Protein backbone atom coordinates (compact mmCIF):
# COMPACT_ATOMS: atom_id res chain seq x y z
CA UNK A 1 0.00 0.00 0.00
CA UNK A 2 2.81 2.35 0.97
CA UNK A 3 4.79 1.39 -2.12
CA UNK A 4 1.94 2.53 -4.37
CA UNK A 5 1.75 5.86 -2.53
CA UNK A 6 5.52 6.25 -2.82
CA UNK A 7 5.39 5.60 -6.55
CA UNK A 8 2.45 7.96 -7.14
CA UNK A 9 4.04 10.74 -5.07
CA UNK A 10 7.38 10.33 -6.83
CA UNK A 11 5.81 10.46 -10.30
CA UNK A 12 3.68 13.46 -9.32
CA UNK A 13 6.80 15.21 -8.02
CA UNK A 14 8.59 14.63 -11.33
CA UNK A 15 5.57 15.91 -13.28
CA UNK A 16 5.54 19.04 -11.10
CA UNK A 17 9.29 19.46 -11.74
CA UNK A 18 8.78 19.16 -15.49
CA UNK A 19 5.83 21.57 -15.44
CA UNK A 20 7.70 24.25 -13.47
CA UNK A 21 10.82 23.62 -15.53
CA UNK A 22 8.73 24.36 -18.62
CA UNK A 23 7.49 27.60 -17.01
CA UNK A 24 11.10 28.57 -16.27
CA UNK A 25 12.08 27.76 -19.84
CA UNK A 26 9.38 30.16 -21.04
CA UNK A 27 10.68 32.78 -18.59
CA UNK A 28 7.56 32.70 -16.42
CA UNK A 29 7.12 32.80 -12.63
CA UNK A 30 4.96 30.23 -10.87
CA UNK A 31 1.24 30.93 -11.27
CA UNK A 32 -1.98 29.88 -9.55
CA UNK A 33 -2.15 26.62 -11.49
CA UNK A 34 1.37 25.72 -10.42
CA UNK A 35 0.43 26.35 -6.80
CA UNK A 36 -2.56 24.04 -7.19
CA UNK A 37 -0.14 21.45 -8.56
CA UNK A 38 2.14 21.96 -5.55
CA UNK A 39 -0.89 21.58 -3.26
CA UNK A 40 -1.75 18.24 -4.91
CA UNK A 41 1.81 16.93 -4.50
CA UNK A 42 1.90 18.19 -0.90
CA UNK A 43 -1.43 16.46 -0.21
CA UNK A 44 0.01 13.20 -1.57
CA UNK A 45 3.05 13.46 0.69
CA UNK A 46 0.75 14.26 3.65
CA UNK A 47 -1.31 11.12 2.91
CA UNK A 48 1.96 9.21 2.72
CA UNK A 49 3.07 10.62 6.07
CA UNK A 50 -0.21 9.60 7.72
CA UNK A 51 -0.17 6.16 6.06
CA UNK A 52 3.42 5.62 7.19
CA UNK A 53 2.60 6.52 10.80
CA UNK A 54 -0.49 4.27 10.74
CA UNK A 55 1.63 1.36 9.47
CA UNK A 56 4.18 2.00 12.24
CA UNK A 57 1.37 2.11 14.79
CA UNK A 58 0.18 -1.27 13.52
CA UNK A 59 3.57 -2.67 14.46
CA UNK A 60 5.26 -2.86 11.06
CA UNK A 61 8.98 -2.11 10.96
CA UNK A 62 10.86 -0.30 8.19
CA UNK A 63 13.90 -2.22 7.04
CA UNK A 64 16.41 0.55 7.77
CA UNK A 65 14.96 1.86 11.03
CA UNK A 66 11.96 3.79 12.27
CA UNK A 67 13.80 7.08 12.99
CA UNK A 68 15.18 7.40 9.47
CA UNK A 69 11.81 6.43 8.00
CA UNK A 70 9.92 9.12 9.94
CA UNK A 71 12.63 11.73 9.22
CA UNK A 72 12.34 11.09 5.48
CA UNK A 73 8.53 11.17 5.64
CA UNK A 74 8.68 14.58 7.34
CA UNK A 75 11.29 15.82 4.88
CA UNK A 76 9.20 14.68 1.93
CA UNK A 77 6.17 16.48 3.36
CA UNK A 78 8.05 19.77 3.90
CA UNK A 79 9.97 19.73 0.63
CA UNK A 80 7.52 21.13 -1.92
CA UNK A 81 5.80 23.70 0.36
CA UNK A 82 9.20 25.16 1.28
CA UNK A 83 10.13 25.55 -2.39
CA UNK A 84 6.65 26.97 -3.06
CA UNK A 85 7.06 29.71 -0.45
CA UNK A 86 10.42 30.66 -1.94
CA UNK A 87 8.84 30.96 -5.37
CA UNK A 88 6.22 33.28 -3.83
CA UNK A 89 9.04 35.62 -2.84
CA UNK A 90 10.85 35.28 -6.16
CA UNK A 91 8.44 36.27 -8.91
CA UNK A 92 10.75 35.47 -11.81
CA UNK A 93 11.68 32.35 -13.75
CA UNK A 94 14.08 31.50 -10.92
CA UNK A 95 11.13 30.89 -8.62
CA UNK A 96 9.93 28.30 -11.12
CA UNK A 97 13.39 26.73 -11.29
CA UNK A 98 13.40 26.46 -7.49
CA UNK A 99 10.07 24.61 -7.43
CA UNK A 100 11.31 22.33 -10.21
CA UNK A 101 14.39 21.56 -8.08
CA UNK A 102 12.05 20.91 -5.15
CA UNK A 103 10.16 18.35 -7.26
CA UNK A 104 13.38 16.56 -8.18
CA UNK A 105 14.50 16.52 -4.54
CA UNK A 106 11.13 15.04 -3.51
CA UNK A 107 11.44 12.34 -6.19
CA UNK A 108 14.88 11.41 -4.80
CA UNK A 109 13.44 11.30 -1.28
CA UNK A 110 10.71 8.92 -2.53
CA UNK A 111 13.31 6.57 -3.98
CA UNK A 112 15.12 6.60 -0.63
CA UNK A 113 11.82 6.05 1.22
CA UNK A 114 11.17 3.00 -0.95
CA UNK A 115 14.59 1.60 0.04
CA UNK A 116 14.16 2.47 3.71
CA UNK A 117 10.79 0.77 3.89
CA UNK A 118 12.29 -2.24 2.15
CA UNK A 119 9.87 -2.54 -0.75
Amino acid at each position, binding site marked *: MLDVLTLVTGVAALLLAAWCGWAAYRDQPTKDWHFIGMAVVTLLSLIQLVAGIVLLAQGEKPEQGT*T*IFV*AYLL*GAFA*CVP*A*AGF*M*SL*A*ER*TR*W*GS*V*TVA*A*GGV*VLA*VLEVRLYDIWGG
Partner: protein
Amino acid sequence: MTSGEAEVSRQRLISGPGTLLVWLYGVMVVGAVSRSAYQIATEFDRAPLAYSLSAVAGLVYGFITYSLVRGGETARKAALACCVAELAGVLTVGTWTLIEPSAFPDATVWSDFGMGYLFIPVLLPLSAIYWLRRGVPREDAA
Protein backbone atom coordinates in the same frame (compact mmCIF):
# COMPACT_ATOMS: atom_id res chain seq x y z
CA MET B 1 32.78 51.75 9.73
CA THR B 2 30.63 54.84 9.22
CA SER B 3 27.21 55.05 10.75
CA GLY B 4 25.65 55.74 7.37
CA GLU B 5 26.49 52.31 6.04
CA ALA B 6 24.08 50.55 8.30
CA GLU B 7 21.21 52.60 6.93
CA VAL B 8 21.73 51.45 3.37
CA SER B 9 19.71 48.34 2.71
CA ARG B 10 21.89 45.29 2.39
CA GLN B 11 22.76 43.98 -0.99
CA ARG B 12 20.37 41.14 -1.68
CA LEU B 13 22.05 37.85 -2.46
CA ILE B 14 18.91 35.78 -2.79
CA SER B 15 17.26 37.33 -5.82
CA GLY B 16 17.14 35.50 -9.12
CA PRO B 17 19.47 32.49 -9.28
CA GLY B 18 20.31 33.10 -5.62
CA THR B 19 16.85 31.71 -4.76
CA LEU B 20 17.79 28.36 -6.25
CA LEU B 21 21.14 28.39 -4.44
CA VAL B 22 19.51 29.07 -1.07
CA TRP B 23 17.01 26.28 -1.68
CA LEU B 24 19.70 23.74 -2.57
CA TYR B 25 21.92 24.81 0.33
CA GLY B 26 18.90 24.55 2.62
CA VAL B 27 18.28 20.99 1.43
CA MET B 28 21.94 20.12 2.02
CA VAL B 29 21.82 21.62 5.53
CA VAL B 30 18.84 19.46 6.45
CA GLY B 31 20.42 16.42 4.78
CA ALA B 32 23.91 16.72 6.27
CA VAL B 33 22.91 17.89 9.76
CA SER B 34 20.13 15.36 10.31
CA ARG B 35 22.21 12.55 8.88
CA SER B 36 25.27 13.26 11.00
CA ALA B 37 23.20 13.95 14.13
CA TYR B 38 21.49 10.59 13.76
CA GLN B 39 24.70 8.70 13.01
CA ILE B 40 26.74 10.36 15.76
CA ALA B 41 23.94 9.69 18.25
CA THR B 42 23.48 6.04 17.33
CA GLU B 43 26.66 4.55 15.88
CA PHE B 44 29.51 7.04 16.24
CA ASP B 45 32.13 4.37 16.94
CA ARG B 46 31.59 2.65 13.61
CA ALA B 47 32.99 5.47 11.47
CA PRO B 48 33.94 8.47 13.63
CA LEU B 49 35.86 10.25 10.89
CA ALA B 50 33.09 9.97 8.32
CA TYR B 51 30.36 11.14 10.71
CA SER B 52 32.44 14.04 12.01
CA LEU B 53 33.13 15.18 8.46
CA SER B 54 29.41 15.06 7.67
CA ALA B 55 28.74 17.21 10.72
CA VAL B 56 31.38 19.75 9.63
CA ALA B 57 29.87 19.78 6.14
CA GLY B 58 26.47 20.49 7.70
CA LEU B 59 27.88 23.43 9.68
CA VAL B 60 29.55 24.90 6.60
CA TYR B 61 26.31 24.56 4.62
CA GLY B 62 24.41 26.19 7.46
CA PHE B 63 26.78 29.16 7.56
CA ILE B 64 26.61 29.68 3.79
CA THR B 65 22.81 29.51 3.83
CA TYR B 66 22.68 32.07 6.65
CA SER B 67 25.10 34.39 4.80
CA LEU B 68 23.10 34.20 1.59
CA VAL B 69 19.84 35.00 3.38
CA ARG B 70 21.43 37.82 5.38
CA GLY B 71 22.95 39.51 2.35
CA GLY B 72 25.38 42.43 2.17
CA GLU B 73 29.01 42.74 1.18
CA THR B 74 30.50 41.16 4.31
CA ALA B 75 28.18 38.18 4.05
CA ARG B 76 29.01 37.85 0.36
CA LYS B 77 32.72 37.65 1.12
CA ALA B 78 32.19 35.26 4.03
CA ALA B 79 29.98 33.02 1.91
CA LEU B 80 32.49 33.12 -0.91
CA ALA B 81 35.31 32.06 1.43
CA CYS B 82 33.15 29.23 2.77
CA CYS B 83 32.27 28.07 -0.72
CA VAL B 84 35.98 27.86 -1.56
CA ALA B 85 36.56 25.91 1.68
CA GLU B 86 33.59 23.71 0.83
CA LEU B 87 34.92 23.00 -2.65
CA ALA B 88 38.34 22.18 -1.20
CA GLY B 89 36.63 19.90 1.33
CA VAL B 90 34.62 18.06 -1.32
CA LEU B 91 37.68 17.56 -3.50
CA THR B 92 39.89 16.47 -0.59
CA VAL B 93 37.38 14.10 0.98
CA GLY B 94 36.25 12.85 -2.42
CA THR B 95 39.81 11.96 -3.41
CA TRP B 96 40.54 10.60 0.08
CA THR B 97 37.57 8.22 -0.05
CA LEU B 98 38.74 6.90 -3.41
CA ILE B 99 42.40 6.42 -2.40
CA GLU B 100 41.91 5.18 1.16
CA PRO B 101 38.43 3.61 1.46
CA SER B 102 39.45 1.78 4.65
CA ALA B 103 39.46 5.09 6.57
CA PHE B 104 35.74 5.38 5.82
CA PRO B 105 33.73 2.32 6.89
CA ASP B 106 30.61 4.36 6.13
CA ALA B 107 29.95 7.12 3.62
CA THR B 108 30.07 10.85 4.33
CA VAL B 109 28.13 13.55 2.53
CA TRP B 110 31.28 14.27 0.57
CA SER B 111 32.27 10.68 -0.28
CA ASP B 112 33.09 10.09 -3.96
CA PHE B 113 32.60 13.82 -4.63
CA GLY B 114 29.01 13.67 -3.38
CA MET B 115 27.86 10.94 -5.73
CA GLY B 116 25.18 9.81 -3.26
CA TYR B 117 23.71 13.30 -3.46
CA LEU B 118 23.59 13.54 -7.27
CA PHE B 119 26.98 15.32 -7.24
CA ILE B 120 25.23 18.37 -5.81
CA PRO B 121 28.00 18.80 -3.17
CA VAL B 122 30.59 19.42 -5.88
CA LEU B 123 28.37 21.36 -8.30
CA LEU B 124 26.87 23.64 -5.66
CA PRO B 125 30.07 25.45 -4.56
CA LEU B 126 31.08 25.94 -8.20
CA SER B 127 27.80 27.64 -9.10
CA ALA B 128 27.75 29.56 -5.81
CA ILE B 129 31.28 30.88 -6.38
CA TYR B 130 30.25 31.94 -9.88
CA TRP B 131 27.17 33.69 -8.48
CA LEU B 132 28.94 35.39 -5.57
CA ARG B 133 32.08 36.44 -7.41
CA ARG B 134 30.49 38.90 -9.76
CA GLY B 135 28.39 40.46 -7.02
CA VAL B 136 24.71 41.08 -7.42
CA PRO B 137 23.43 44.12 -9.32
CA ARG B 138 21.66 46.64 -7.13
CA GLU B 139 18.47 46.44 -9.12
CA ASP B 140 16.67 43.23 -9.91
CA ALA B 141 17.10 42.45 -13.55
CA ALA B 142 13.85 40.43 -13.49
